């Protein structure tokens, strides 16, 4: 469904991605893990069009998307939940969700109903300014808002960042549910253990290259991964 081949991305002189190949099949949860500065977020931002790759190809559903603008890529059904819960803080929860349907607001009410069934807490707070929500609730809102665009595939950038453990497991459970409903997911995570348990397949990034890849299970038992990312 999504294929990156030989992607190079840089910030000025600093090369953040040095030729990575990643593939995500329809219906999969694929996870990118790696330490700080390995290039995980850069990879996601390159896919979503916020950053432009120096060279390489990105294909989504058989269409070349490298060099497209973010809004065009969202229009193709590839939505990103950006890092750090970038919600619209002064808008209410409901307004945030409505904003998510900017591209396509057909069936708005049903979609909102669906999001509220996934995250009942958002329903309780639908008229509250979203900046007053807790971190976990904001993350739920950010995910819910992306779903409003009816994405075929969702890019999640560190959804567990700064959340209490109970919230992390709640978010991961939701990701699994979304996947079962048919949404393909590419997940970037620091919380490697939880992510590898969830993912069908995973890639380990190190200094801008793909160091390892395999099924989540394989990587969980890989000696190097256990040492470097699982703290064993």
């Amino acid at each position, binding site marked *: 469904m999504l294929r990156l081949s030989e992607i190079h991305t840089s910030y000025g002189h600093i090369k953040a991605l040095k030729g990575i190949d990643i593939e995500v099949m329809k219906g999969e949860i694929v996870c990118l893990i790696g330490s700080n500065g390995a290039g995980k977020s850069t990879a996601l931002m390159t896919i*979503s069009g*916020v950053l432009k790759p120096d060279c390489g190809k990105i294909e989504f559903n058989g269409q070349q998307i490298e060099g497209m*603008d*973010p*809004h065009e890529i*969202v*229009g193709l059904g590839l*939505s*990103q*939940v*950006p890092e750090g819960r*970038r*919600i*619209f*803080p*002064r*808008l209410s929860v409901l307004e945030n969700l*409505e*904003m*998510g349907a*900017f*591209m396509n607001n057909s069936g708005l009410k049903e979609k909102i109903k669906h999001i509220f069934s996934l995250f009942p807490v958002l329903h309780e707070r639908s008229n509250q*300014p*979203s*900046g*007053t929500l807790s971190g976990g609730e904001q993350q739920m809102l950010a995910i819910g*808002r*992306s779903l409003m*665009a009816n994405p075929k595939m969702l890019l999640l950038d560190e959804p567990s960042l700064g959340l209490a453990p109970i919230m992390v497991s709640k978010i991961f459970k939701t990701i699994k549910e979304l996947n079962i409903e048919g949404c393909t997911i590419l997940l970037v995570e620091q919380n490697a253990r939880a992510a590898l348990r969830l993912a069908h397949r995973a890639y380990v990034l190190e200094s801008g290259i793909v160091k390892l890849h395999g099924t989540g299970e394989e990587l969980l038992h890989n000696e190097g991964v256990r040492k470097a990312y699982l703290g064993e």
Partner: protein
Amino acid sequence: MKRFLHSPVASALCAALLFLPLKDLKSAVILFVFVLAGISAAPYIRKLKIPQIPFKASGLSGFLPVLTITIFALLPFALKDYYLDVLIMFGIYALLALGLNVIVGFTGQLNLGFAAFYAIGAYTYALLNTRLGLGFWPSLPIAACFASLSGLVLGVPALRLKGDYLAIVTLGFGEIVRIVLNNWDTFTKGPNGIAGIEPPYIAGFSLGKLQYYYYLVFMVVIAAVFVIRRIEFSKTGRAWLAIKENEIAASTMGIDTTAYKLYAFAFGTFWAGIAGTLFAAKMQFVSPESFTFMESVLILSMVILGGIGNVYGSILGAFILVIMPELLRDAQLYRMLILGLCLVVLMIFRPQGLIGAKDASAGR
């Protein structure tokens, strides 16, 4: 007695008495007749069901806006020319503040050179009129579109920048326009300015008289409020709001942030062009002095003072910053000091402005 107080006659009498000290008995009588007619006709007008739906969203219905519009519509009957003159300037500044509010308040893009577009509007009409003999009405859309186009020209390079950098570039643009107007002697007559600009005519009838000009400006402000409010609650307005709240999040919603920012620039500067034309036609004279950096700061202060992102706030801000200096005329030297102090106090106790759009504390 109570019945009488609620009758139209009582309301008209009150309005007439209220304005009595300001002018002579004759105008009080005229006012009385007008208000009486207006209030008596109101129930029938309501039955006509004039397009109610767009008016609701435009924010021009409801008690307060209608009352405000009525009061302002009646003022020329009661006020001395000097006050009308001040109110015309208030109308022109209200248009400028409304335009800048689209860029700064709705879309969150700081602009410190807004007077440049005001100048472009004013000079476009001045030059079209004095050199080509073009009248006010054909010049108005040309000047507005030209200001709008310069907004786009500035926007394309400037909107790659954010925050402080954008502010500096817009400030620079404002200065460039002023300096060009000041130095291009052969075309703009430099610091001497352009004199002899015609007031607007309708069927050969001059609107140069203050009373008529007041109504012209008044109608344009109402039209601006109507159009801007309609756009504020449209898809475009939502896109602007999303960009202001969080640009990256907006782009992940599928919003073409560059296009919508440019749209805000073009749309906001359009009203500056209109304001400029009205200014030139009122003064019948333009010179670069009227479009300094201080002018840009003044317009920005109006937007911030009234409540950033709120259409009515911009108008209130313009009202206060135009009327206050006139009321403080007795304080002479100290008036700018008092005004400055008021602004500082306001920013400390009400950072969102007098009528803020949304609670600014959430999410901070």
